[in-house]
Structure formats: C-alpha cells, structure tokens
C-alpha cells in the first residue's frame, strides 16, 4: 500500500514536470495528431487514383491533379511531423535542464555529512544518467500515448463509415492491445527498476576502483579486478535481458495484431470482391477496399509506436524511483541561493562557548558526550586526542556542519540563531581532507574569496608557504592542477587549502590537522605564517603535532567524550630525530 502511494506520487511528480510549459506541451501532443489526420486524406487520395486507373481506365494526364494533391498532402504531413519532433526535443531539454539545476542546488544545500556518507559516483550518475533517462518519457512516450489513445479509435470510426465489418474489426482489436501491453509492461517495469539500481551501483563501483587504480595494480589485482568488472557488467546484462524479454513480448503482441489486421482486411475485402462473403447491401468499390487496406497498418501504427516507447516510461519510472532513493526524496524546484558579499575587514576576535555539547555520527553513535569550553576572544587552543576520538566531529559541529545537542555560542550568540552567510563570515574552517578543484593553483586559492586580486592571492600563497613550491613550477601560481590536486603531495594540498583561508577575514578559525603531512621544518614555517594570520583572531586547532600544541595558549584533549584540560607538553620534543 505504502509502495503504491509512492509510485502514484512518482507519477504525479513526472506529470508536474511535464505541465510546467503548457504551450509547448500542447504543440508536442497536438502536431502528431494533425499529421495523423492527414494520413487518412493521403490514403483516400491514393486509393482513389488506383481505382480510377485500374477499374475506370483513366489516362495518366487525367490523373495528374490527383497525384499532385497526393504529393502536397505528403509534404504538409511530413512538415507537421518534423515540427512535432522539434517541439518534443525542446520540451524534454527544458525539463532536464531545470531538473539538473534543481538537483545540484538541492544537494549543495544539504549537510556535507550527508554527501560525505554517499558515493559521489552514484550521486553524479543520478544527476546525469538518471535525469537523462527521463528524456524518453517526455519526448517520446507522452506524444505516443496521446496518439495511441486517439488515432486508432478515430481511424476505426472512419473505417466504420466505409465498411462496418472492417470498422468493427479495428474497433475491437485496437483497444485490446493496450490491455495486453499493460500486462506485459508491468513485468518490464519491475525489472527495469532493479536494472537502474544495478547501473548506479556499477557507476559508483567504477569511480571507487578508478580512484584506487594504483593500489590495485601494485597488489597485482589487474586480472582479478578486470574479471570483477566483467562480472558486474554481465550482471547488468542479465538484468537488462530480463527487462527486454518482457518488454519485447508486448511489442510482439502488437506485431501480431498489426500483421493480423493487414491480413484480415486483405482476406475479408478480397473474399467480398469474389462474392464468397456477402454481408453488404451495396457493392464495395476497389477505392474503398484499397483505402481500408492502406489504413490497416496505420490503425496499429500508433500502438506500435507506443509499445516501442513503452520502455521509455518504464525507464523513466525506474529512474524516478532511483532518484528518490538516492536523494532521500524527489527534488522540488528550489530558489537559487543569492551570492553573499564578503565584508571587508575583520571585526575583532570572537569568543567561543560550548555548554554540554553532544554530537553523534550519522549512524547515531555518540561521539562527543558532553563537551564544555570557554574561550576568550583571541584565545588559541589545541585539541589533542587519538584518531577517531571525535576531534573533527567537534570542529564540524562548531562550524555548523553537523547537528548537535547542547549550546554553542559565538560572541554570546547561539549558533542556531546566526544565519548561515553570517556564520561563514565569522568562522573559517580547514577540514582534514581539503579538496582541490580542476583549475590553477591561484584559482584554487581564490575559492576563499572569489573577487581577490592577484596581489591578495600572492600574499596568501606566501603566508601559507604555497609560494615555496609553486614558484619552482614553470607557471608558478598559474600552474593548472589535475582533479583533486593530482600531482601534488598531501602537504602541498594542505598548504593550498590554508592559503584559501588566509584570503578571508574570519574571527574564529577552526583547523583540523593543518600540518599532518608536513615535515618538521616546513611545519615550523607554516606555523609562523599561521601565527601571523591568527593575530587578533580566535583559533582552535585539532592536531597530533606537539609542535602545534606548544604554540597554543592552552591544550585540551578529548577523553570519554569530554574536553579535558591537558598539560602543554605531554611527551618529549618530536623534532629530535627527524632533522
């Protein structure tokens, strides 16, 4: 029952998308119907020509006006069909374009912990492949459905006026077809759903394995992984064939009726001519008989078209279900977020206060049980603790990236009461796994403040010690980077991410392992830069490095889900052995 409601809601969502542009929708549905009406005229004229030539013995010159009329009808009909096709394409593209944008905005408005818990390959496949899978529903299935609902019956009624037996044959057989088709289609739809899920898993798997290609090669997994790729593809083939076996069955049903219609009309009309069948008061002419024969395939053609595009509907519905599953709901139209201007100058360091803060991971496991902290404006603290103990989680909660219970106050104002752009202006955070984007080093630094001029980027690069390695590159800061900083070491990526932060004017800085990939000498230089930037700012650093901790005012450690004060130096100076 619940499932059924869901499917109904998914269907409604699809139709909502279609209803957004009613004028275009009318053209998409109406033009093919007009072209269909001309088909009747075309068949009548052609049958008339044959009748006059074969039965009445008319000469070619006398028939030329009718042949010219036939040609004109043909051209107009083709033009109408062409315009219908163009309208359908525009219609589909407009819907997909809007939907893709809504989905991306929707994704980016969610919590980063939500996206982090999901496969980025599968999510991107949802935005690309699954949205693309909707195309056929709007451009092919909808017009085909309207044609199938109207044209066969209209053609049958016209045939009825010529010969009631043929009309009756059409009238009875045509509506039967959708029944058979629906029977065959149901199976196809269920199978198509599982196929969409398989396709998405495959996409996620590829992204994952490609990321680890080097590791797989190093461990000699080339052959084994290639075999697994083949196995996954084969699984998709088996699933797809299950869909196709049933989907094609419904088109075989149609083929059956269409062939039967032609054969039935030919035999019935032929036998009537031979007087072997006689149910008529008036004589049937060749013109009428030929017209019926010409119309016979056309009666079933709209239904055949619908069958050919029926799996477009099944794929679209499966894609909708997949979108809903992947995004935890169907995206509604969203208003684009207005860009917020950065304020020019800092307004002095902020205070930070934590009262009974508790944070759980996405599975609900408590990570931080009860953290309390009072940090005066301009204070600098380090948070130590073994990995996985919740340092990052706590910083993310303070940055407003994670839900928490208890109270976090910045400058005495509760986090929940500060609006997001304001919050981002006051608080800057460097995560443990900063991401670099395709573009130059300077472009990546400029993510911190997009209107930053060259000099500002340069200053930030120097302060974060990016310039140290960038200047050795032939193009300096303009050096293009591959995706995710391909070609850079972990320490270099971290320093670029730090430079981003230096372009801003935060009042509270949260750093998560800023020097994890740096050697002691570079670490010291980077910390000098940080000290300079963090003057007149409040600073919280989660770290393993005792060198970092030594430079802070106070040191805390996380134990038992609480923040505990710790002595500033707990073990020997780590810089001894390495240098």
């Amino acid at each position, binding site marked *: 029952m619940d499932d059924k409601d869901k499917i109904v809601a998914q269907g409604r969502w699809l139709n909502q998308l279609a209803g957004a542009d009613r004028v275009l929708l009318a053209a998409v549905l109406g033009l093919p119907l007009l072209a269909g009406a001309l088909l009747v005229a075309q068949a009548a004229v*052609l049958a008339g020509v044959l009748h006059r030539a*074969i039965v009445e013995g008319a000469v*070619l010159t006398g028939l030329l006006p009718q*042949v010219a009329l*036939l040609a004109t009808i*043909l*051209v107009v009909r*083709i033009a109408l069909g062409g315009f219908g096709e163009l309208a359908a*394409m525009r219609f589909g593209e*407009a819907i997909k374009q809007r939907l*893709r*944008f809504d989905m*991306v905005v929707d994704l980016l408005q969610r919590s*980063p912990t939500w*996206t*982090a818990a999901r496969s*980025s390959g599968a999510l*991107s496949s949802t*935005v690309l*492949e699954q949205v693309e899978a909707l195309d056929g529903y709007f451009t092919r299935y909808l017009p085909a459905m309207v044609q199938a609902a109207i044209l066969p019956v209209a053609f049958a009624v016209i045939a009825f006026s010529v010969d009631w037996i043929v009309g009756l044959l059409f009238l009875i057989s045509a509506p039967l077809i959708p029944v058979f088709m629906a029977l065959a289609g149901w199976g196809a739809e269920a199978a198509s759903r599982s196929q969409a899920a398989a396709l998405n898993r495959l996409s996620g798997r590829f*992204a994952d394995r490609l990321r680890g290609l*080097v590791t797989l090669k190093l461990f000699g997994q*080339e*052959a084994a992984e290639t*075999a697994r*790729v*083949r196995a996954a*593809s084969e699984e998709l*083939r088996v699933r*797809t*064939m299950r869909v196709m076996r049933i989907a094609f069955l419904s*088109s*075989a049903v149609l*083929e*059956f009726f269409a062939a039967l219609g*032609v*054969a039935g009309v*030919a035999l019935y009309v*032929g036998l009537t*001519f*031979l*007087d072997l069948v006689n149910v008529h008061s008036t004589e049937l002419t060749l013109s009428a008989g*030929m017209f019926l*024969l010409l119309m016979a*395939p056309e009666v079933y053609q709209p239904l055949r078209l619908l069958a050919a595009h029926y799996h477009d509907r099944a794929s679209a519905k499966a894609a909708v279900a997949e979108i809903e599953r992947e995004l935890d709901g169907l995206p509604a139209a969203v208003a684009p977020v207005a*860009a917020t201007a950065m304020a020019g100058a800092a307004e002095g360091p902020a205070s930070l206060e934590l009262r009974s803060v508790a944070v759980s991971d996405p599975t609900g496991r408590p990570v931080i049980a009860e953290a309390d902290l009072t940090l005066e404006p301009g204070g600098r603290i380090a948070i130590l603790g*073994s990995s996985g103990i919740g340092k990052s989680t706590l910083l993310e909660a303070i940055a407003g990236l994670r839900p928490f219970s208890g109270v976090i106050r910045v400058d005495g104002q509760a986090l929940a009461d500060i609006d997001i752009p304001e919050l981002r202006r006051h608080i800057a*955070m460097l995560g443990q796994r900063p*991401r670099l984007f395709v573009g130059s080093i300077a472009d990546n630094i400029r993510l911190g403040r*997009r209107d930053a001029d060259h000099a500002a980027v340069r200053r930030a690069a120097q302060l974060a010690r990016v310039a140290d390695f960038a200047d050795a590159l032939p193009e300096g800061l303009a050096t293009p*980077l*591959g*995706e*995710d900083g391909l070609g850079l070491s972990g*320490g270099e990526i971290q320093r670029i*991410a730090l430079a981003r932060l230096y372009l801003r004017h935060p009042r509270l800085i949260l750093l998560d392992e800023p020097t*994890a990939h740096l*050697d002691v000498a570079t670490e010291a230089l980077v910390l000098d830069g940080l000290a300079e930037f963090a003057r007149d700012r409040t600073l919280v650093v989660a770290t*393993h490095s005792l060198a970092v901790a030594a430079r802070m005012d106070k040191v805390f450690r996380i134990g038992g889900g609480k923040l505990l004060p710790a002595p500033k130096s707990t073990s020997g100076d780590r810089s001894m*052995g390495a240098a």
Partner: protein
Amino acid sequence: MRAILAFAPLLGRLKGPITLTLLLSLITLLAGIGLLGLSGWFLTAAALSTLGSAFNIFAPSAGVRGLSFIRILSRYGEKLSGHDMTLRLLSDLRAWLFARLFPLVPLARRFGRGDLVSRLLADVEALDTVFLVALGPISTAVLAGGAMTLVLVLALPGAALTYALLFFAAVLLVPIGLVLASRAAGAEAVAANAMLRQAVLDGIDGHQDLMLFDATDAAAGAAAVASGRLSRARQGLGLRAALASALVQLLAGGALIGTLLAGLAALEQGTLDGPLLAGLLLAVIASFEASAMLVRSATRLAGAAAAAARLQAITDSAPAVAEPAAPLPIPPGGDVRFEAVRFGYDPQHPVLDGLSLAVRAGECVAITGPSGAGKSTIAQLLLRLVDPDAGTVKLNGSDLRAVNGAELRGRIALMTQDAPVFLDTIRANLRIGRDDAVDDALWRVLEAVHLGEFVRSLPGQLDAVVGEAGRTLSAGQARRVCLARTLLSQADVIVFDEPTSGLDVETETAFLSELPELTRGRTAIVITHAVVPETFDRVLELRAGRLEAARH
C-alpha cells in the same frame, strides 16, 4: 568513424549472434514487404475478377497468413538476439578497457577521475549503437532495397532507377550526411557531459570546502553552465535528426509518387496489369520501414563515433613504463639498490640527482626529508611506476627495467600515501593484499595493526562493508586497513610511503616501533617525516636529490 573500426576485433568475437540478428531482421523486413504487396495484389485481383472465374484464393490467402506469422516471430527473435549481443559486447568492452587502463597507471594528470568515469560508462554505452543501430539496420536496408529494386527491374523497369536512387539516398546518404553533420555537435555533447559530471563530482567531493567558503552558489553555477552547454549540444543534434528524418520521409514520398507515375504510364501502355501495380505500390511503401529506424539512431551513431575516438585516446596513450620483451627472472631475496639515479617530472629540474642507496635483505630503513624533496618518487621508482632518467634501480642485482612488472610487484609491496579503502567488505579490502588469505590470517594482521577489536564490534565483522574512500572509517582507521592489507602481502620488500599520516603521535610512535618486528624477515623501507624509533636499523635523509645517513 575510423575510431569505431578499431573496435572491430571485439565484434569479431560475436560473429554468430551478429549473423543471427542480421538474418532475422532481414526476414522481418522482407516478410513485411511481401505481406503488404501480396495483400494489395490479391485485393485488386479479386476486385477485377469476374463472377465465377476460377480465381485461386488458397495460395494468396495462405501466403498472407504465413507471412504475418513469420514476421511476428522473426521480429521478436531479432530484437532479443540483437540486444543480447549488444550487451555482451558492452561487457567485453568494459573489461577490455579496464584491462587497458592498468598498464597506463599512474594516469597522472592526463585524465581527471570524473572524466574517466564518464568515458568508461557513457562512452562504452554509446558504442552499443554501433551494431544495433548502424551496421545491422544499414546492411538489412541495403539488402531489402536491393531485392525490391530487382523486383521493379523485372516488373516495372520504368520505376526501378528512380526507386533505387531515392531509396539508397534515404538509407545511405541521409544517415551518412547526418553523421557527418552531427560529428561536431556529438563530440560537444560528450564533452559537455564530462564537464557536467566533473562539476557535479567537484560539488559533492568538495562539499565541505564549498560550504565553508560559502561557494556553493558558484559550484551550482558551474554545473548550470555545463548543463546548459549539454542541453544546447543535444538540441543541435536533435535539430539535425529532425531534418534528416523529414528528408527521408520526403524521399520515401518521392519514391511512392515516382513508382505511381511510372506504374500508371505502364498500365496505360498495357505493359503492367492493375493488381501488380497495386501490389508494387504497397510493397514500395512497406520497404521504407527500414529507413525510419535508421535515421532516428544515426545521431547516436555520431555520438558513438566521438565516444570511440575518446576511448581510443586512452588506449593509444603510451604506458608509463615499457615492459621488457624478454623479461629476466629476479633472483630470490630482498636486496635493494639505487645506483646514481636521476629523475625529474620536468627533466630540467631533477628531483633526484645522483642518488645511491643500498639496502640489504631483511634491513629496516627509514627515509626522511622535507616534504617535496622526492621521497615518494623513490617509492615510485622502486615499484617501477616511473623509470629513472639516468642510473639504475635493482632488486637482487636485476635491473628493474629487465624484469616482468607483475613479478616485480609480487616481490615489492607499496603502501602509498593515498592508498584507498574500497567500497567493499573488510575482507575484500584486505584480500587485495593476498587473494587466498584465510580468515585466521586476516584476524592476525588486524590484531597486529590494532584494528581487531574495532572490526569485531562491526555488524558482520569481516563482512562489514566500508564506505567510499573509507569515509565510514576515521582517517586513522582507514590508514590501518591499508597497512593491514600491505602486511598481508607475501612480498620480500615492503615500502611504506608516509604510513602514519593522519594518526596521532602515540599511535604513530607505537606503530613505527612495531614495524621492524612486523616486517621481520623482509626488507622494509619506510618513508616518513615522523620521529623514527630506535628499533630501525638505519635512518637516511633525502636532501637536494641525494640520501645521507642521518643516524646509524
């Protein structure tokens, strides 16, 4: 189009299914032509027959029924076998392409990951049209059109030439013209698709950074730009397809009118009778069924050609290192030697210059040095992911360039700085290190890296699935899964590249102190910037491209 031909060997493997599909589709088409033609002839002949004349109705009516059933069955079979064959081809293509990627590793900055995913999935799938849409239907249409032309030559010679010209223009020239006209737009659509995927991946993978820097609107804007570009490219393709489809229908209409005029003239001259004229006209109408399908998919053929060219660009790129033609065996043992090695990604600025290193079998050596000094390059040279510009790297006296790469990687294991945890079970993640490892061995190694208790707490234990990039694990736990995997391998030499980054000092110190014990009996080379414990045999420091002893 030439790019598609490069994939012909893969098609060759599916000769049987291809022939079957072709045959079935030809039968379907010919049965359709025969059915409508025979019906037209029969109907007209019946209309003209005088009462009581001996008109044989049994042969034509049996023919009509027979042809309809042949058509129903062959159509179903054709579709099924065509799709099955196409999907088999897809599996072959995916596996083949994946296998081709491995020798090219490391892919470096040549291809972004988003782009690569797009190539593998979308491009390979775009190639499915090559047979189902192009080769199959074109051959069928040409054969059926040839047959129809032959019938016209015999029955209505006046119409044969017009029909042949218009038919072959519709089934050959228009699709070819469409492919050529769509080439640029098709390539543009594929490129825009890759750009959009990259934009979406950037948005998802960099979500936290974008959020923190209040740059989500810029990311959404980048995606919107790519999406608009994709939409425009698709509309360009659609316009061409609509024009081509109209053109084909006009040609079909022309063929109908031409045959009609020639037929009427022949009828007037008495060289053709009425029933045959009706039959031929209806057969001509039926024969154009072949062209309707061709045009709809020819746009996708253009896209497939672009996809094929991109796939070829990957497979044709030179491998990072060349395998020796006649590899020499590696003598047993774990003795590693660098002799006057020079290497630079930019040869003008070598990272390593005149580097020499000798590590005896069973030794445990640490290499330290400032970040960016080239420490990781030493590991890459040892695994032969790159070759030195000068000098040699040897394992037990064998130059690495002379030995089999797979054998080398069986003898030297490397845990890279960015080794990933795969979206798979703990067991599958560990077994990458050693395919046949039994659970006991897995637990032993998990205990050794202090993960035993954690894994026992997971639902499903060894069967617990860990997330993409190990994000359901903490950074430290993810590193330790990779460590466990590496320790599991049976290599004589194990290289660790920053094995403890992301671990806290206590765990780092504990782990490094245990390393010599864990790797006892094997050679261990540990690249690190951490404090090196006393348990190591030697510590070397990389400075200005050379190694110096820092401690003995």
